[in-house]
C-alpha cells in the first residue's frame, strides 16, 4: 500500500498552496516560485542538526556584496534558512500520536530513510530558497492556523508557528507543497531590493 502511494505521489504533486497577504490559503497546481529560471542551483542535504550552521553559512556566502542591500539580504536569508531547517529537523518529525519527537536545540542525526534538503539559487537580484523534508506534515489548515495566531497582535512568548509566520512575512511567493506522510517542501524568494509594502514591519 505504501509503495503504491509513494508511486502515486512521486508522479503528481498534491496540496500545493501559497498564502495571500491576509494569510488565506491559495491552492495552486504549480509552485508560485521555482528555481528553474536560475543557471546554477545549489542543493545541500542535511544529515544532522550539526550541519545547520554550515549550510546557513553557505547560503550567506552566495550573496556577495558589501553594501547595505546585500547585508540585509544575507540577514534575511540566514533567518529564513534557520527557520526552515529548524522546522524540518524538529517540527516535522512526529510520532503516531502527532507529538513532536525531538526538542528544539537537541542534537540529532537523521533517521534511516529520513531526508532533509535545502535548495537555493541566487541571480544577483533574487534568492530562491526551499527546504524539503520527508515527513509530509504541513497541511494548509495547520499553516493557516499558525499565520492567524501570529497575526493577532499580542506578545505571547510561547507561540507555535512563529517561524512559519516569519517565512510568510519575509518571502515573496511563499509556498508549501506537501504529499501527506511523504514530503513537505517550503520555499519562496527573497529580493535584494524588496518593496517596503511586502514587509509589514517597515
Amino acid at each position, binding site marked *: 500500500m505504501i509503495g503504491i502511494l509513494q508511486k502515486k505521489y512521486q508522479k503528481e504533486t498534491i496540496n500545493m498552496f501559497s498564502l495571500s497577504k491576509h494569510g488565506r490559503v491559495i491552492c495552486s497546481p504549480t509552485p508560485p516560485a521555482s528555481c528553474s529560471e536560475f543557471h546554477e542551483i545549489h542543493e545541500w542535504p542535511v544529515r544532522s542538526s550539526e550541519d545547520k*550552521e554550515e549550510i546557513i553559512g553557505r547560503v550567506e556566502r552566495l550573496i556577495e556584496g558589501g553594501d547595505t542591500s546585500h547585508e540585509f539580504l544575507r540577514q534575511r536569508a540566514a*533567518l529564513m534558512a534557520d*527557520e526552515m531547517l*529548524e522546522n524540518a529537523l524538529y517540527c516535522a518529525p512526529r510520532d503516531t500520536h502527532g507529538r513532536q519527537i525531538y526538542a528544539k*536545540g537537541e542534537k540529532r542525526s537523521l533517521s534511516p530513510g529520513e531526508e532533509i534538503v535545502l535548495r537555493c539559487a541566487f541571480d544577483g537580484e533574487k534568492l530562491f530558497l526551499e527546504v524539503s523534508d520527508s515527513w509530509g506534515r504541513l497541511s494548509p489548515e495547520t499553516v493557516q492556523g499558525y499565520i492567524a495566531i501570529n497575526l493577532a497582535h499580542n*506578545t505571547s512568548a510561547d507561540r507555535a508557528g512563529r*517561524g512559519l*509566520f516569519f517565512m510568510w*512575512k519575509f518571502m515573496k511567493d511563499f509556498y508549501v507543497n506537501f504529499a501527506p506522510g511523504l514530503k513537505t517542501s517550503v520555499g519562496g524568494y527573497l529580493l535584494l531590493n524588496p518593496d517596503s509594502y511586502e*514587509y509589514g514591519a517597515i
Partner: protein
Amino acid sequence: MEQKFKIEIKNGSTSDTVHFHGNIDSHADSHFEELGRKISKKMVVFDFSSVGRINSMGIALLLRSIKSLKTEQDAQISIQGANQINAMLFKMTGIYLLAPEAKRL
C-alpha cells in the same frame, strides 16, 4: 561561522546594561535563566550590537525574559543596537511594545 552565545552585564550607577553576543536561539536558553538574578537596577538596557541572528526560539526567550523582568522586578527595559532585521522582528512580535528603543543621546 556560528558565534558562541554569551551575556555580559555592566552595572552602571543608574542602569544595568545587558550585552548579548552571538546568535539567540534555543541554545541560549540556559543563559536567560540566570539573567533575573544578575539585574539589580530598575532601568535596564538590552544591547544587541554584538548579536547575529535571532530566530523564533530566540524571540520567545526574549519575550519571556522581558516579561519576567518587568513583572517580577518592576524593571523598565529599553533596547539598543539592533540590526535591521532584528529591529523588524522586534516590531513584528511586539518586543518593542514591551521594551522600546533606547533614546539616543
